[in-house]
């Protein structure tokens, strides 16, 4: 704060303005000119930042692009994606943060989009499954899922692909326990877990073989 007040000391109320700014409030100018104590300025600044309950402009950063929407504060990030944008990759499966179908990356970390408000997602980089491929080239994780058949109905797949992608970004060579710990928050009903484990290990550079043995009945004695 001290450095900043030296930059432009002639502007009245500058250091106070910068102090307020450093605390995150943006509607500073009006506050600084109209009220007296810092606390009152803060309260007013904050009140001016209040959004809703009616719809307000919200700008999301999704897969590197801007998404400009008008949404009530009670709209979740998942709702914003699925019902107010073309990004339907994240699925609504439980809407209660218990299954991982709505997993998106939030500044690179997996979160449940159904348990975040769209309004609080502003200013964060959101990655959905649609943001992983480069043009028509699948990411290594996506390709590994196909190669090991780590998908069946596919409804849980976007969430798992993102969880595994994020894991490998943090830990390029995980062991099986680490994959399970990273994916514990994703549920599959069709039963793809064993193959998702294989896909994660394969994408990390390992080799994977099917252990299923096939015996021709006609050859049995």
């Amino acid at each position: 704060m001290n450095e900043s007040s030296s930059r432009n000391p002639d502007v009245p109320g500058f250091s106070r303005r910068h102090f307020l700014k450093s605390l995150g409030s943006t509607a500073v100018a009006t506050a600084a000119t109209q009220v007296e104590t810092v606390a009152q300025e803060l309260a007013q600044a904050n009140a001016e930042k209040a959004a809703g309950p009616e719809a307000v402009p919200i700008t999301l950063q999704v897969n590197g692009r801007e998404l400009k929407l008008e949404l009530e504060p009670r709209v979740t990030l998942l709702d914003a994606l699925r019902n107010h944008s073309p990004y339907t990759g994240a699925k609504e499966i439980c809407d209660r943060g218990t299954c991982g179908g709505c997993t998106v990356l939030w500044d690179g970390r997996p979160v449940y989009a159904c348990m975040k408000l769209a309004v609080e997602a502003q200013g964060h980089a959101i990655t959905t499954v649609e943001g992983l491929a480069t043009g028509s080239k699948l990411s290594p994780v996506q390709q590994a899922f196909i190669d090991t058949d780590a998908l069946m109905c596919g409804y849980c797949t976007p969430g798992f692909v993102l969880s595994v992608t994020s894991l490998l970004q943090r830990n390029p060579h995980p062991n099986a326990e680490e994959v399970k710990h990273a994916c514990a928050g994703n549920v599959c009903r069709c039963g793809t877990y064993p193959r998702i484990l294989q896909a994660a290990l394969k994408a990390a550079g390992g080799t994977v073989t099917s252990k299923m043995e096939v015996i021709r009945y006609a050859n049995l004695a």
Partner: protein
Amino acid sequence: MKPFQYVTAATPAGAPELLGDNGCYLAGGNDLLGLMKEYIVEPAVLVNIKALPGLDKIESDSDHWTLGANVTVAQLEEHEGLKVDLPALHQAAREVGSLQIRNVATVGGNLAQHSRCWYYRHRDVACLKKGGDTCFARHGENRYHSLFTGNNCISPVVSNLSVAFAALDATVVVQRRGSAVRMSIADLYAKAWDNPTAHHSLNPGDLILRIEIPRQSLRSAYRQISEKAAFDWALVSCAAAGRLSNGQISRGRVALGVVAPVPYQVPEANEMLEGHLLDEALAARVADRLLRGAVPFADNGYKVPLARALIQRTLLALRA
């Protein structure tokens, strides 16, 4: 959810005023949004407290660890220093929900979370904890409920972190009406022991600022038993801490989770851990003492032998 205003608090001092007469703090959101989606709580204002400066740090000096209330459970789990110095906290953090939850869940939110009792959480059941007349669990489905309680509600505390903090003698610093109030974990949950509608002792407007853990060269351990291998609430959880010297334990603490509205400790049980050889026999005696007075309901009697085994294993893990 009902419609609400959303506002971001800039300072801890300014936060309570923003609540109005029907507001809630929004931290990670896992608990609050879940309650709101079922209309169990219906705030008109959500005050986002995640931008409050300085509450998101893990710091330590020679005497204390200080965890800001906005530290995420993922940060706790990933902190190498904590893993070495306070293993119980690391192990408790690791088991919280799933990675997606840990990435947003805050320490403060984890402590302040509401009951997970399925009657409380049901949108169409007006149970005692919600101001109704009846604790439906008492004569109903109570397999996940308390063995000890001081009131007619039998829903237990489920916060993993609270149990670890209890065993580590943590202090919770709460901003209450402008002042910083220091509470032990027992203080933090005391109101829930007496009062069926309480989840903890916080009043509306109270804001958890930080948790301070004294550095006492203690060993510590946390264990829990769940039905599923992961991403499942504990049936019972246990944290133990103590100093070990030549096999003798001192400054011992054992706390149990999910058996009472508070992280359950018994002073006599802790005293039994002073100056004795930590062996299977002592662990068994401590477990018996801690579980004395347990009052099982129709479906949760299994928690007694389960807790007994868990207490013994957690204590003996201190020897490793």
